């Protein structure tokens, strides 16, 4: 088989065809700043710098991931709170300095951000990345969740988690408002760039079963995930990058239910944490969707090149023949401070062990 270019490789996977080799989507965000000489803070504070860093990192390494903007604590800034950009030592993502919700009354008074005039908070920067991506034929990746994780930082997190028991109606009201913001975002990006060019990105760590029970997931996370994914289906977007972050093994039945209930023709890219065996992902989603790898990010950070190649090899061998395609990826963001040789390890493993011809 002739060698494909990165867009051809991803295009083949999207079409359900075999590419020349397993694509590599290293889930790079902060790393792109480190490797291109920009501060990590800048790529979150300025969408143009984000695009430049990610585009250049993509060109430098030759992987298949296109530029995207997003971070785990998206939500507070958009609802009128404050975030701190990661300019300090060891900082890797924006963090909340002022939660817009500190009381039940705050939830009642909270106004859902609109996208009619100036875009709210991080979506303004995300829009800059989307615009340049679409102009170059790449998808506009839009963060649209998770509603539960975003709500858990719009409100002060400990309060929010305690309100699940003490104030469940208020929690649902907050979840409703946060999901409405994401609906507004989906509509804006679909209208601006065309739904066929949009790839929503949904996922978050606060639903992890080290924090939340599957019963709580069912009651407080699932309904808003379903609401947003129905919207994605209605709008006609072709694919979703879905990242159930960390250990969400007990939540898998609900993700399966979402898939079945919506009976969506589009494709999910499932990017689970390292805690979820690849075979379990194939068993649950392989008949319709693309399975991503889940190489352990801390291991990428501190283990040797040889070890990372070995971990990638194990991932590839487990997922390569998934019926609807496989993409090599880490189980969460690529460690921002990892040396470049670790990206090379992923690329080398894909070349050596991920070829289909």
């Amino acid at each position, binding site marked *: 088989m002739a060698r494909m270019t990165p867009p051809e490789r991803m295009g083949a996977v999207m079409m359900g065809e075999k590419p020349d080799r397993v694509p590599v989507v290293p889930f790079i965000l902060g790393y792109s700043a480190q490797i291109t000489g920009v501060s990590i803070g800048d790529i979150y504070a300025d969408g143009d710098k984000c695009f430049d860093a990610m585009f250049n990192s993509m060109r430098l390494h030759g992987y298949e991931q296109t530029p995207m903007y997003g971070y785990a604590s998206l939500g507070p800034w958009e609802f009128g709170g404050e975030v701190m950009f990661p300019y300090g030592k060891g900082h890797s993502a924006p963090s909340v300095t002022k939660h817009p919700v500190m009381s039940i009354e705050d939830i009642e008074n909270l106004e859902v951000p609109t996208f009619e005039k100036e875009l709210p908070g991080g979506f303004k920067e995300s829009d800059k990345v989307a615009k340049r991506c679409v102009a170059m034929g790449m998808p506009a990746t839009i963060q649209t969740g998770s509603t539960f994780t975003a709500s858990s930082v719009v409100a002060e997190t*400990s309060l929010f988690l305690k309100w699940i028991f003490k104030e469940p109606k208020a929690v649902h009201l907050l979840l409703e408002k946060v999901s409405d913001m994401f609906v507004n975002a989906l509509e804006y990006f679909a209208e601006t760039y065309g739904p066929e060019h949009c790839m929503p990105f949904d996922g978050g760590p606060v639903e992890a079963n080290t924090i939340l029970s599957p019963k709580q997931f069912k009651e407080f996370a699932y309904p808003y995930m379903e609401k947003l994914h129905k919207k994605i289906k209605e709008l006609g977007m072709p694919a979703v990058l879905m990242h159930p972050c*960390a250990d969400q093994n007990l939540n898998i039945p609900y993700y399966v239910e979402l898939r079945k209930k919506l009976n969506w023709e589009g494709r999910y890219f499932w990017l689970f944490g390292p805690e979820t065996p690849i075979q379990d992902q194939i068993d649950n989603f392989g008949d319709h969707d693309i399975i991503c790898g889940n190489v352990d990010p801390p291991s990428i950070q*501190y283990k040797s090149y040889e070890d990372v190649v070995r971990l990638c090899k194990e991932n590839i061998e487990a997922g390569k023949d998934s019926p609807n395609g496989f993409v090599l990826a880490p189980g969460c963001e690529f460690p921002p401070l990892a040396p470049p040789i670790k990206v090379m390890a992923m690329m080398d493993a894909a070349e050596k062990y991920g070829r289909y011809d």
Partner: protein
Amino acid sequence: MDKETLFKKLADAVIDGDEDETARLAQEALDTGIDPYDAIMQGCNKGMAEVSDRYEAKEMFVPEILLSADAMYAAIDILRPHLKVDDTVAKPATIIIGVAQGDIHDIGKNLVKMMLDVAGFNIIDVGRDVPVETFVEKAVEHNAKLVAISALMTTSMMNMEPVIEGLKEQHSGAKTIVGGAPISQDFADNIGAAGYGKDAVAAVRIAKKLTEA
């Protein structure tokens, strides 16, 4: 109510996260002359130990634990001022606890702190996004036996090893335990930490082992 019944009810109220009930029972313990130390150990502590077991068994999750912690502290805040000071008993070991530099995620750290507190350690909480030097300075200042560091990011976890190195130079009597989402036993061994707590329950177990050694 006899004291055994009161202890049982106090433990159950901690498990149920009922802070009104724990406060009421704590006051009742004082009013009926029950030793506040016994009420903490036989009531609050037993309740929290059950909460830990249920978390390990995936029967309780963080929202419930946060409510249990509030309920426990509602009782302890009433009981603690009445504890008798006994100079013949050895002082509890001091643990410095904080979140590594670059990280502001402190729910996990706060849970570990609460469990260590209940287990009887003297806890100095240095907060979150803590510079390496602060961990070392506080360990020296308080003659700490243990330094507990949490991290949730692959960037901040890289600031754990410098703390261990700093302690070796300036306060070699202190051992270090590490924990948090990206941390593993392998990583802990790799950076020379004395212990790894995969969760709050394990952290307490390791802390006891290391401070008794």
